């Protein structure tokens, strides 16, 4: 249902992503999904990992500013119209989406979409009511 996402503040300069992934790999943590929001001067890297607390600790030790955010992860069939259906439900029920990104696996018939919604409790309630397949961990 709700899942922990780690956000990392990054300056737009060479090698910062390499440093993040190096620290995470050093902690033996596996990255399951990621997305970057960027502006002209800085970016925010959003990560879903198998052990968020360990990843956050490793990043903090490496000098990065991080923040944990709860997001909604929904599993949908990997076929045309599935995301549209979820979006339609959210639209009709007033679940405002701040951003989203998807995680796909090649040998799997489903995709996981990560939703950052304005009101997480409402999002969870609506997802449950409409029998959407929420994911506890990735």
């Amino acid at each position: 249902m709700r899942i922990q996402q780690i956000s990392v503040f990054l300056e737009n300069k060479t090698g910062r992503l390499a440093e993040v992934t190096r620290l995470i790999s050093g902690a033996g943590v596996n990255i399951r999904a990621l997305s970057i929001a960027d502006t002209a001067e800085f970016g925010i890297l959003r990560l879903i990992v198998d052990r968020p607390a360990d990843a956050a600790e490793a990043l903090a030790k490496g000098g990065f500013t991080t923040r944990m955010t709860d997001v909604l992860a929904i599993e949908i069939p990997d076929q045309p119209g599935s995301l549209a259906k979820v979006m339609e439900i959210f639209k009709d029920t007033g679940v405002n989406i701040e951003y989203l990104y998807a995680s796909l696996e090649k040998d799997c018939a489903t995709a996981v979409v990560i939703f950052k919604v304005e009101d997480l409790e409402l999002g969870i309630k609506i997802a449950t009511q409409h029998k959407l397949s929420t994911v506890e961990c990735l």
Partner: protein
Amino acid sequence: MIWNPQYECQGAEERRLLQLARLKNLVETLYSRVPFYKAKLDSAGVHPRDVKSLADIAKLPFTVKDDLRETYPYGLLACPQAEIEEVHMSSGTTGVPVVDAYTRFDIECWEEGMARTLSGAGATRHDTVQVAYGYGLFTGGLGAHYGAKRVGATVIPMSSGNTPKQLMVMRDFGTTVIACTPSYALFLAEEAKESGLDPKSLKLRAGCFGAEPWSENMRKQIEAAWGIDAYDIYGLTEITGPGVAFECECKDGMHVSEDLFYPEIIDPESGRPLPDGEKGELVFTTLVKEGTPLLRYRTRDVTFITRGTCACGRTTAKIHRLFGRTDDMLIIRGVNVFPSQIEHALIEIEGTDPNYLIVLDRGESHLDEVELQVEVKKELFTDETRSLESLRNKIEAVMKSKLGIQLKVKLVEPKTIERSIGKAKRVIDRRKI
């Protein structure tokens, strides 16, 4: 052109007698009228009657910027407030302004100093003087304005900014003398060329440039770009504003109006007076000021003094182009800024840990560009780009209102700003002045 040969070309002995008489009078006035100075003199163990020669000035206590801040707004007034005709101020280290209050006589002396300054640049009643220093609390604009009126020139009170209009007025009214910061003079020349106007085709022939540090190299650039003579001028709000010292046609040091302002050079560490020709901190005593006279005010500017009769005929002491400062004050686009002011402003912005770095540069525009790097600490970090962008905009807006300068904020990762042992490095100045 010498505006006032009586004082500017006075014999050395005659000048010393005049200075001594004025110094004695000043110390007596301060002792009897300004409780702050009475206390200062008493605790230094000196009495007005101890001033018997000019050398005795070394016994008198210094005045520092903090003294002015602590006595804000009117604590240093040496005359009834009703006598004050005008007030100016500039920023202090913590945002408490430093005040200069002028009586009618003080304004006249200011006009006199600026009339000498403009005359040093060859200005007469036949000239049109465009004042592109800021008008308002800043002394640059009105100081140049009063001086230009005093020499009888036509004054155009443009104030700073509005570059296209500056150029239009300069062309249409045939401006012959401009008063602005040297970096703005270079910027104006670039903008003129950009707009298809050849700076050399204009009637401009001289400029009085001050309010910020510049160099011989910049002088060459300005003179070449405009086809004019560029003169260095010196002043500070505390003493009177512009008009304290200025260059003559020799462009070899700035003549101090010694009948009005008594200059000394001291060792900034020990406070001991240094001989002529030796580099140290410039100290001024206002010899005739009525509103807010100052005793041995430490300017924090570093220079040296030379004496003798100049080729121009003036006999007044000259101070060399400034070498720098003994404190951390920055002059950004003519505005005095202390890193501590930036720090205080950052602390006020909720949750901002003041880990910052000021990077100064002069881009192609020739104007000072300021980047303020602020580390994004955990407390400031949200998951959204828009809230970080609004934080950045907020810092920029607060700095604009508190410091009066437009700077660009760059949010950086923690610990990217170099930590040094002891005092953190807060400023990187890449300006090639």
